């Protein structure tokens, strides 16, 4: 069965079909919740709430947006609601020792050992940089880089206009870049000498 078939079956009340959707999206939903909430405990709760909201709301899902976009929106809402309930709406704005508990699985990318190590360290710094960002900028960057959503899809998930998405991505990316440059762990390639000569 395809995703569309599972969505339709789940909308009609088939829990087995919904379970297939859970298996398909659980990592992506949890990954988004983890970066929005800032810690695994809240991320787990928010991700479960998002799936429960999806189960409840599927009969009314009109498929004007893709199922994934809709699910990410539910996840974003669940994270905001949870943080609001806990009174820590901007809790993840700054780095915290607790945040380092979030387990990260850095896969073997197939590079040599040195390169793999550097890649792993860079990824960890990116995670740290994301935690250091403001939630508004982190959300858009995660949806763009982690979930590969287009600007209009991000706008739909976060209930923003596209212009706001563009400006937040720009600022968020600059924030992250500056963070990586400051920590010294980010060593981007030097600009091409040919380009320098032409400039």
């Amino acid at each position, binding site marked *: 069965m395809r995703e569309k078939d599972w969505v339709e079956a789940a909308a009609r*009340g088939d*829990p087995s079909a*919904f*379970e297939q959707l*859970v*298996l398909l999206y*659980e*990592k*992506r939903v*949890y*990954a*988004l919740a*983890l970066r929005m909430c800032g810690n*695994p405990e809240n991320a*787990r709760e928010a*991700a*479960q709430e998002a*799936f*429960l909201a999806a*189960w*409840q709301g599927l*009969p*009314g899902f009109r498929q004007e947006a893709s199922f994934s976009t809709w699910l990410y929106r539910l996840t974003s809402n669940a994270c905001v609601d949870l943080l609001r309930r806990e009174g820590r709406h901007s809790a993840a704005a700054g780095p915290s020792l607790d945040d380092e508990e979030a*387990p*990260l*699985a*850095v*896969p073997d990318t197939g590079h040599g050992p040195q390169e793999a190590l550097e*890649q792993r360290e*860079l*990824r960890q710094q*990116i*995670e740290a940089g994301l935690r250091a960002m403001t939630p508004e900028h982190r959300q858009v960057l995660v949806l*763009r*880089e*982690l*979930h590969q959503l*287009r*600007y209009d899809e991000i706008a739909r998930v976060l209930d923003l206009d596209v212009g706001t998405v*563009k400006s937040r*991505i*720009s600022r968020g*990316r600059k924030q*992250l*870049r500056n963070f*990586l440059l400051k920590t010294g762990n*980010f060593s*981007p*390639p030097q*600009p*091409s000498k040919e*380009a*320098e000569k*032409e*400039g």
Partner: protein
Amino acid sequence: MDTHDEFAALLDAFVDGELSPAEADRVRAHLAACPACQAYVTDALAIREAFPEAEDTVLPEGFTDAVMTAVRAHPRKNKVLPWRKVLLPLAACFALVLLVRHMPLSFGGGAKDTASVATASAADTAEMAEDIQDDSDSGVMEYKSARDTDSAPEAAPEAEGPAAQGFWDSASAEEDAAADHQELMAAQTAIGPGEAEPYFAQLRLTAEEAGDLLADLTPVEESETELRYELDAAGYSALTAALAETGIALEESAPEDDSSGTALVIVEK
């Protein structure tokens, strides 16, 4: 000509593939000549390369089971019914109520009891209709056309065409409402002996058949589907004569006493 700042503002959209092909080409041309912008794009792509991947996320233990347990423990609360499934039946019920309330059920001086009429069985009304047809002394005239579905249709040829449209076409589309109405109309036309009825004759015409023969008269009752006129014997005789001249033949039993009494003429709209 775009300034450096204008190109700089396009870099993120360029990295994210959100520019049109023409815009992307212009940015590429600028990158070839601007080390600062090229460095930014290079950094952004490096971040993307190293960015965590969702599929690499480590799920908490038992996450899937916990989700499905919650799903099974929380049945769907408010079923979102398409509005058609709620409002249309509701509208149909409302239309039925209106139809029954406004049903023209006047028997002259008599039966306004819509409930008793409505409950008359089809068999009873059919039997009464047969009695009336066979009893030439009843003084009841029936005009039968191809539209009359309650008894054997014996249409006057001239009654076909527009007259053959059928009474039920103008009634509610609801089958139940049409069936109820059919029973009511059968009860109306089947005036049994012994029942108090003021009319020595009843005549049903289409608007086309009636033409402007009754234009000078004021109907005693008007509904969405028909007009009802009461004629004295002289007026009724004149009407039937005029109808005969237009070629509309009537099955008639001569009224017992045509110098007194009232005839009911029903004109369909």
